[in-house]
């Protein structure tokens, strides 16, 4: 759908227009500028705010910003401590980054669907998708990174031989090696794919509903978009939370020696 020309207008044109990325390049070497820009911007905002809080962090009475940041950090830390029992300097900051970044990207969903694309069109930018997590590239970038960490920690903790043994000998023992390997491969690959697709699917569907609501007469829109937006506050937080928790759980599994 991304390649079609759709200057034709009408409902289909409107939807397709809203789901087309602003991109440069050809074929595989296409860069979705809007995804890169918004994800980078939101990541930058996240880092900026948290860095500011971290710089002025005091063990005394915390200010409002520090309070807010500490609340999130403690929440993430509790989740990580609950599911991950090893010692790792990476897991907790990783979880925090995922939670906040995904949440911010998802939260772009709550902006009116035509707001930023409308402003952009004034500057001659034809297409703009403001929710990076409705781009498969974004969700898979994270889930594949996490997958890389899973493999890395599996090998680091269990050793190359231990990892190979786990891949080949479980769950059915040495007589079923090919079958074991197949089963394990599916199991491992299912992790990044489900992780990426879950977030993408939820956000894409949510955004699509907003676009559909935007197609209705203006006097119907508030009655539908308001409840959906309220519901979406839950969805965006939940999806960010799920992504974070599953990452921690997967990495914790990678640390466990069977």
């Amino acid at each position, binding site marked *: *759908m*991304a390649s079609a020309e759709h200057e034709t207008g009408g409902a289909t044109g409107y939807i397709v227009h809203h*789901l087309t990325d602003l*991109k440069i*390049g050809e*074929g*595989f*070497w*296409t*860069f*979705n500028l809007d*995804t*890169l820009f918004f*994800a*980078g911007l939101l*990541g930058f905002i*996240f*880092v900026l705010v*948290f*860095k500011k*809080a*971290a*710089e002025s*962090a*005091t*063990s*005394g009475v*915390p200010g409002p910003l*520090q309070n807010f*940041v*500490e609340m999130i*950090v*403690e929440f993430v*830390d509790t989740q990580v401590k609950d599911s991950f029992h090893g010692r790792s*300097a*990476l897991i*907790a*900051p*990783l979880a*925090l*980054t995922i939670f906040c*970044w995904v949440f911010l990207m998802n939260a772009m969903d709550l902006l009116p669907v035509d707001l930023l694309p409308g402003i952009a069109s004034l500057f001659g930018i034809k297409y703009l998708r403001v929710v*990076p997590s409705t*781009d*498969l*590239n*974004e969700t*898979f*970038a*994270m889930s*594949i*990174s996490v997958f890389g960490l899973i493999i890395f920690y599996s090998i680091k903790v269990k050793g190359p031989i231990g990892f190979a043994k786990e891949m080949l000998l479980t769950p059915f023992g040495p007589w079923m090696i090919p079958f074991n390997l197949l089963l394990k491969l599916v199991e491992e690959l299912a992790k990044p794919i489900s992780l990426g697709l879950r977030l993408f699917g939820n956000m894409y569907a949510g955004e699509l509903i907003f676009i559909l609501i935007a197609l209705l007469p203006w006097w119907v829109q508030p009655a539908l978009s308001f409840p959906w937006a309220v519901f979406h506050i839950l969805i965006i937080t939940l999806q960010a939370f799920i992504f974070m928790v599953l990452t921690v759980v997967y990495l914790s599994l990678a640390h466990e020696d069977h």
Partner: protein
Amino acid sequence: MSITATLFGQMITFGLLVWFTMNFVWPPLMQALEERKKKIADGLAAGEKGKHELELADKKAKSFLKEAKDQAADIVNLAQKRANDLADEKREAAKQEGERIKAAAEADIERAIQQAKEELRKQVAVLAISAAGQILRREVDINKHKEIINSLGNQLGQV
């Protein structure tokens, strides 16, 4: 909707964010939280200690108070005893003084009686002698009968 090189861009962004968070955001925040936790724990411990010390001081104060009360009671008892003793002593002294005065008075009386007796005896002897003299004037020669008169006087003195 296809997987493109955007993926790599996003992975790099993601990696940078995680790296940054790991190095510059997480440690100071965690440190602050740990420090606050420690501060609160210390504060609670200090509070607990203060409470304990207060209890101890309370106990001590009570024991001091009890001791002081006991001491005061002791002192009062002692004073009372001393007062009683003193009163007894005074009474005893007064009694002794009375007895002494009485004895002195009795002795005086005794002496007076003795004196009176002596006087009387002497007068009786003189009287008797003079009476005897008057009766025996003519027949008795003073010088001749001096021995008898003397022995008579002595016998009278022994009465």
